[in-house]
Every structure is written in structure tokens, then in C-alpha cells.
């Protein structure tokens, strides 16, 4: 019985501790983003390339298929009620309000989040972060700030790309393949998509961008403090997996919270 209590207590302490240090980590990074001297713009551009540009292909690909399958499902369902004309607004609204931000964020987590976590984790275990600190270079400013800014800039843009490509995919399948009326497709879309929908999608994508880079960077940064033993290559691989899982789950939970607040 005492052993069970011990374990529960230990686990609770560990997770409270982890939550605390992740909070402090975020505060330090935000502080370093604001504080002068500013991070170097060339570092930010490099990170935007890594997080954003290199993700474009996978975003276009997943976006296109998401839009296409939405149109396919939507058309079949709507045709039962004779309202195929609404297919445009169904595709656009589902993408802009929900699927665009969530799926784009999940793809970025898998592609860039894991890379961020592994890179920082390796820097930690090979003492590179200690070396930076000893050179009086703050890793929060030198490594983290450019990544945070790049993620905050890239994820909303990638979401926009995802939405546009998705709508186009929906158009191809709905109008060209299934034969929905082209005019009705666009008219319903123009009529039903409001600014509130777009701003909801935008807010989500910014929050998800921050969430991804925060969780992945902090997990990598604190790899040596992991409970399961954050040592060596195995420690980094374990922490990368857990960062991706935690980011993905958090994205879905946060999605629900934001939706319930904004709807």
C-alpha cells in the first residue's frame, strides 16, 4: 500500500515538475523573443525554410486528398437530400474551421516537430547546449527563439495552403468528377464562409504552431531529465516519440477547447 502511494506521489511530483519546467521554458523563450538584441533574421529564415518550406509538399498532398474525400463523402450524403449545390460550402467550411488547422498541424508535428525535438535532444546529450551556456550564449535565444518565430509564421501559412489546395481538390472531385453544379459550388461557398470562420481557423493554426514547437523543443531540451532515463540515442528516440504523441493529442484537445470557446 505504501509502495503504491509512493509511486503515485512520485509520478505526481514528476508531472507537476515537468509541467512547471515547460512553463518556465516557454516564459524564457517568449522573454528572449521580445528582449533586445534581437535574434538574427538569417536564423529565422533558415528555420522557416526547415519548418515551413520543406513541409509544403506534404501539406499540398494531404490537403488535396482531404478536400477530395470531403467532396466525395459530402456529395454522396447531400445528394440524398437533393442539395448537392451545398457541396462547396461543406468542403470549404469543414476545411477552414476544422480540418485545415488540425491536419496541417498534425503533419507539421510529424515532419518538423519530431525533427526539432531530435535535433535539440542530440544537442543536449552531446553537451552542445552546455557548451552554448558556457559561452554565455543563451540557448533560449540562439536556438529556441528562431524556431518559435518560424513555427508561428509557418503553421498558419501552411494551413492556408492546405485549405486552398483542399478546396481545389474538392472542386475537382465534386464538380468535375461527380458533376455538381460549378456555379452552385462557388456561390454556396461565398455565401456561407464568413470572416468568423476564417479567423477561427487562423487562431487555431497560431495556437497549434506554438503548441507544436513548445512541446517538441522543451521535450528535447529537457531530455536529460526524463523519468524513463534520457540517455544516449535511445533517450532521444524515446523523447521524440513522446513529443510527437503529446503534441498530437494536445492539438486535438486544444482544438476542442478553442472550438467550444469560439463557436
Amino acid at each position, binding site marked *: 500500500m505504501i509502495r503504491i502511494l509512493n509511486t503515485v506521489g512520485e509520478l505526481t511530483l514528476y508531472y507537476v515538475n515537468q509541467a512547471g519546467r515547460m512553463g518556465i521554458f516557454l516564459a524564457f523563450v517568449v522573454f528572449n523573443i521580445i528582449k533586445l538584441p534581437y535574434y538574427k533574421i538569417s536564423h529565422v529564415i533558415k528555420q522557416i525554410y526547415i519548418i515551413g518550406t520543406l513541409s509544403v509538399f506534404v501539406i499540398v498532398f494531404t490537403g488535396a486528398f482531404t478536400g477530395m474525400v470531403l467532396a466525395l463523402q459530402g456529395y454522396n450524403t447531400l445528394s440524398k437530400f437533393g442539395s448537392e449545390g451545398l457541396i462547396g460550402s461543406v468542403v470549404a467550411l469543414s476545411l477552414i474551421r476544422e480540418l485545415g488547422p488540425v491536419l496541417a498541424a498534425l503533419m507539421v508535428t510529424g515532419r518538423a516537430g519530431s525533427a526539432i525535438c531530435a535535433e535539440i535532444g542530440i544537442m543536449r546529450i552531446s*553537451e*552542445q547546449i*552546455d*557548451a552554448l551556456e*558556457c*559561452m*554565455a550564449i543563451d540557448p533560449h535565444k540562439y536556438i529556441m527563439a528562431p524556431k518559435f518565430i518560424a513555427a508561428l509564421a509557418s503553421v498558419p501559412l501552411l494551413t492556408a495552403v492546405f485549405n486552398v489546395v483542399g478546396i481545389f481538390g474538392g472542386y475537382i472531385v465534386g464538380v468535375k468528377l461527380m458533376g455538381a453544379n460549378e456555379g452552385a459550388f462557388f456561390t454556396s461557398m461565398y455565401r456561407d464562409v464568413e470572416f468568423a470562420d476564417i479567423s477561427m481557423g487562423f487562431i487555431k493554426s497560431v495556437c497549434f504552431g506554438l503548441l507544436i514547437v513548445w512541446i517538441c523543443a522543451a521535450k528535447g531540451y529537457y531530455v536529460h531529465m526524463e523519468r524513463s532515463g534520457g540517455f544516449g540515442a535511445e533517450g532521444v528516440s524515446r523523447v521524440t516519440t513522446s513529443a510527437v504523441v503529446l503534441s498530437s493529442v494536445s492539438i486535438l484537445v486544444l482544438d476542442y477547447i478553442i472550438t467550444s470557446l469560439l463557436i
Partner: protein
Amino acid sequence: MNAQSMIQMIDVRKRFGAQEVLKGVNLSIFEGKTTVIVGESGQGKSLIIKHILGLMKPTSGKVLVNGKDINTISRKGLKEIRANFGVLFQHAALFDSMTVFENVALPLRERTKASEEEIRNKVAEMLTLMDLEGSGEKYPAQISGGMKKRVGLARALVLNPKIVFFDEPTTGLDIAKSNEIYRVFFRTQTKLGYTSVIVSHDVPKIFKLADYVALLYNGVIQDCLSPEDFQTSENPVIREFVEKTMGHIYESERMEG
């Protein structure tokens, strides 16, 4: 307390779970001098450096650098103290996605307002000093262990630090390579005049460089003496260490009269 001492460790203890590794370390590092910390592997020699650098917090005790406790100082203050430090890590800790040139240039780029040309000249000068001409464009994975240490040394020294820490500078190198590191060390210290702290178990060779030798044994610094006094110390632990590593020492005075 000596007025000259730059770094003081006062009764520093460090515990990992049930194991206490440092059991009250007292050590003073004097300005302009070379202090060598020796001891068997696994005694926690590197831990001492990590505590001085502020990378680890002691369970109890104080670490003073220029009179300031680095564990209670503000982040800004710690940064200012570290600005005087140069560190050569045990495994060099080079940034492996940057070239040798970029590694050495990093402190200049991030900490000074030097122009690109000044940076290039300074880095070239450091690389020459370390016999590394022509390796600037290589990545750390493409150079040998000895070269990595020299790059680490170049990076540690590029901003003319006041205190330089060497964590096992010659471990894993053959005799020729380690002599080379010592030569470079000697050359740069003569030129730049820094205070240095060396963790090593390369006894007795390291004595040639040392002004003071401190023996860490059983979690405590047994004594910190000049190399000559160290080798003839009456302290049984030091005697045993000296005999184990250097062989029995012949002392005419004691043995013959």
C-alpha cells in the same frame, strides 16, 4: 581566504539519489595559475568543473567566482561571469552541424559586433595557432579526435577568456597527440595568460604544466599543493596516489639520513 583566488568552492556537496559523490569539496583557484585536479576515474573530477561553470547545482555548499555565489546570482550575472570563461569539454562538444570554421566563429558572431572580415581573420589566426590550417571547411565528424579537441580549444580561446577549463584534454589520445595538446596549451597560455583549471588523470605528465595539483579522493579534495610538494607530500592518500601513478619516489634526504 586568499585575496588572489578567483574561484572558491566551499564545502560543496553533491548527492545523486542515495549516492553522495562530492562530500565537502574545498578548493581555491588562483589568478594566472594552472590548477590541475587529479584523481582516479569516477571520483567526480568533471563534476567539480560542472559546478564551477554553474551547469550543476550543489546539494549544499557554495561556489564563488570573483566573490559571487554563482548559484544565487541572477541569470544576467551568471552570463557576465561566463563571458570570462572558456571551456574545453571532455568530448569537445562541437556543434556537429556546423563546420570547424563556424564553430570557432560562433562566439565571435553571437557575442561581439565584429565584422565578417574581422571574424574571418580571428578564426584563421586561432586555427593557425592550433595547427588546423585547411580544416576550416570540414565538419566535426570528418576530423580526428585530437583535431576535435584542438578545435574545441580554439573555440574556447577565441574570445580571450580569463579562465579556461579543460576537462580531460588528452583522454583518448595517443602520446604524440596528447603532447601536441600540451604544446598548444603551453603556447596559448604563455601568449594569452589565462587562469586555467585542468581535470586530468595524465599523471605525471600533467605536473609539468601545473602550478598547483589537487587530488580528489573519496569526494574530498585531499590537498592542493605545488607539483613538487605534491610528490613529496606526507599525506598517506596523496602518497599512495603518487606511488600508484608514478612509481616509488626516491627521496635521498629521508631515505639516507
